[in-house]
């Protein structure tokens, strides 16, 4: 494996893969400067860090190889757990510590991105850099471009959605930060994406600004490519049709759940408003009573405690529950995009194949290499996609289990707090009663 570049690092846990690589590997084929669908970034070019991304196309598709590797080495691992297991996890990332920056041109928030790693691809075992949303966006675009066959986790919305939301409010920043943390963790946990050189730069380089310029170029390249595509897909394999349908329905259901949750929040807020009024009536009643003063004040107290518990529940819904739900909708969109790209590459292959077959029939021209390359591309794409799909499904299951049990937990806590408040009231009132009875019988 070529490791000539100054920052090139021998791949650590990937030796077996590299040894299994097809002879037609990195640096053999000159490629056009504008990245196209045939990019094969990942492992191979990861090893040639520092040089401009020389993407090699290789028929040995990484996902197939990974799968084989896992089957051979991790025979006992859960078949669905296709992420790097925590024991072998060697890259830890965290996003925290939001800070506001005010400059003459603009005001923005940066977050601290901390990295701990034992990977040899990194110079140091620890990094600490500050990044803003723009930088995350840059990373995402680079990943999308360099790993077109893989599902890139989504970022939280760039622009705020509803009406006028304060971009610098604590809640907004907190929610966004959690989403950015999730994004980065998902990338770092991905067996392929985590070795992407752009990720490396993102995590380690002090000043990312110079790289921003490329973002524009790649975006342009992307759209040019899509316009130039224009191939029509004949028959999508059923498994990908099923994926597409699933994603559509799932997206719909999530949208419904979002609306329900919002409605609950609204009803709850109105309920809490009335409940606060209710409590204050008890307080004013207590003012005109003697014997009943303390009991009535105690009732007002219990009601007030319930209001507080209700506020906590609502806050949790809007801070933790809804954002995660919405992020999944974005995730679904990303997945759909990947499916579309897969369709594109299949269509291209079929188109070229048809053209080549026709020409061969006419003048016995042999099958051009491009056609074979297209075929390989499609197969790789399909394999990568399927692997990512499994990973995504497994993650989705875990994420939703966590999300929903979390929601149930919060509701349980809410009721527990309320129950405690009313129970202490009963104790108080009954104590007073037996006191009075004692006085009477005496």
């Amino acid at each position, binding site marked *: 494996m070529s490791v000539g570049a100054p920052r090139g690092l021998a791949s650590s846990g990937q030796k077996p893969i590299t040894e299994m690589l097809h002879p037609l590997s990195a640096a053999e084929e000159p490629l056009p400067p504008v990245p196209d669908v045939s990019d094969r970034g990942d492992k191979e070019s990861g090893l040639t860090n520092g040089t401009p991304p020389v993407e090699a196309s290789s028929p040995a598709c990484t996902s197939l190889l990974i799968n084989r590797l896992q089957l051979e080495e991790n025979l006992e691992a859960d078949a669905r757990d296709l992420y790097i297991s925590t024991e072998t996890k060697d890259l830890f990332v965290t996003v925290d510590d939001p800070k506001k920056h005010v400059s003459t041109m603009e005001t923005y928030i940066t977050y601290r991105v901390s990295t701990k790693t034992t990977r040899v691809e990194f110079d140091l075992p620890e990094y600490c850099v500050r990044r803003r949303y723009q930088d995350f966006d840059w990373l995402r675009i680079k990943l999308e471009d360099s790993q077109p066959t893989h599902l890139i986790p989504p970022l939280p919305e760039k622009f705020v959605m509803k009406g006028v939301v304060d971009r610098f409010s604590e809640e907004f920043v907190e929610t966004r930060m959690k989403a950015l943390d999730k994004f980065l963790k998902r990338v770092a946990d991905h067996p392929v994406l985590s070795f992407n050189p752009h990720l490396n730069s993102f995590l380690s380089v002090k000043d990312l600004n110079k790289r921003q310029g490329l973002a524009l170029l790649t975006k342009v390249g992307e759209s040019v490519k899509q316009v130039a595509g224009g191939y029509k897909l004949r028959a999508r394999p059923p498994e990908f049709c099923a994926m597409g349908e699933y994603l559509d329905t799932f997206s719909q259901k999530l949208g419904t759940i979002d609306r329900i949750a919002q409605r609950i929040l609204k009803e709850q807020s109105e309920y809490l408003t009335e409940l606060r009024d209710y409590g204050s009536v008890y307080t004013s009643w207590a003012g005109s009573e003697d014997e009943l003063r303390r*009991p009535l004040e105690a009732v007002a107290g219990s009601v007030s405690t319930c209001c507080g518990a209700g506020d906590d529940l609502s806050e949790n819904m809007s801070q933790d529950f809804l954002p995660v739900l919405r992020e999944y909708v974005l995730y679904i969109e990303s997945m759909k995009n990947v499916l579309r790209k897969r369709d594109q590459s299949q269509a291209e292959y079929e188109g070229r194949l048809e053209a080549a077959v026709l020409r061969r029939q006419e003048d016995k021209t042999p099958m051009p290499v491009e056609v074979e390359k297209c075929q390989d591309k499609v197969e790789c794409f399909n394999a990568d996609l399927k692997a990512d799909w499994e990973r995504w499904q497994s993650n989705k299951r875990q994420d939703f289990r966590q999300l929903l049990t979390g929601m149930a937990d919060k509701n349980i806590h809410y009721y527990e707090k*309320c129950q405690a408040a009313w129970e202490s009231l009963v104790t108080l009132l009954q104590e007073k009663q037996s006191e009075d009875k004692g006085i009477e019988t005496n």
Partner: protein
Amino acid sequence: MADSGCSEDVAVIGNTDITSEESDSINNTMAESQTDLLRKMEINVAEAEKRTGKNTVNMQETYTVYLIETRAVEAVTEGGLPPAPDSLWRRYSEFELLRTYLLVTYPYIVVPPLPEKRAEFVWHKLSADNLDPDFVERRRVGLENFLLRVASHPVLSSDKIFFFFLTEEKNWREEVLETGFQDKADSRLKSLSAMYRVKNPDKRFTALKQYSDELNTVISQLLRVRARVADRLYGVYKVHGNYGRVFSEWSAIENEMGDGLQSAGHHMDTYAASIDDILEEEEHYADQLKEYLFYTDAVRSVCRKHDLIQYELEMVAQDLASKKQQKEELSTGTVRIFSLKGMTSKLFGQESPEQKESRLAALEQSIQEGEAAVKDKVSECQDFVRAAWDDVERFKEQKDRDLREALISYAIMQISMCKKGIQVWSNAKECFNKM
């Protein structure tokens, strides 16, 4: 609480529905104040039935009648079982007639109120229709409560008309009217509606009136807000039902997650449905509050009756004072108070000594009558104040006891609601965990 102070001798047959806890506690506090009547008799409003018939303007109407059952306390048949109770049917208007009679006959007593005629302070889901079975049921409980309150009152329980109300179906109406209470009813109306200034109000009654007004205001407010709270809570619970449907739809496209989602969805449906019972139960708390809301009207009318007597006393006292003044002027010849006779005699000449003598005698007579009237009125006032204040003290203690009980049972209801909530969400959480 339900068990303390319960005497075995008077096991009042309460109703066996969810209200039993609340009415038991009220029944028990009434059982503590044992009257002769309750010692002898068990009273119970057992059922409600719809009837149709012609009313006073000969039109068909549908109304509800309530079955009043009474049974001698220690009666036991040969089989060792209690005998069948005596029973009769009464409609709401007859209860109203009884109460008006009591109000007029015992103006110094805080007469227990009837349950509301029409449903008020309702939250939207609850029907405001008088023929709605839930309303009828709550009214039945309220009417029984009314009878028990009267039966346990130290003064009211020995009233004959009340006794006949419980025991004589047919002739009761005539008997009530025969008491002639209607005449007194007019004066009572006067006392309630008239505006007059009392020169020396009894401070205790002024304070009581103020308290009663405050209580009325605050309980009305409480009932209004409570209805709004109930409305909102209903909304929160019901929207969760939508989760049930969407989880079910979602589970259809899932493999491993499907079962967990589906079962969790069922729990969400259960959660949404549970609010109906919860709020129905809370209506009993509202009913307890309403009883005391209506009680404030009874308190106010005692205060106003007192005002009237006080006013009448002041009037006769004033009248007496003015006559005495006149007599003094007549005998000494000085005119300090304007009188028509005095004026005319000034204008048309002095009267003869005989005329003066006869006028003096008439005045003397009038003064004596006036003094007797004042004495009567003072005595009436004192009796009224003594009896009224006794009953007000009794009422205050009852109120404090009952309302504290009501608050406790309200808190217990809330605890039960929380426990249900915890149960449902724990079940759902288990399902989510299995996803």
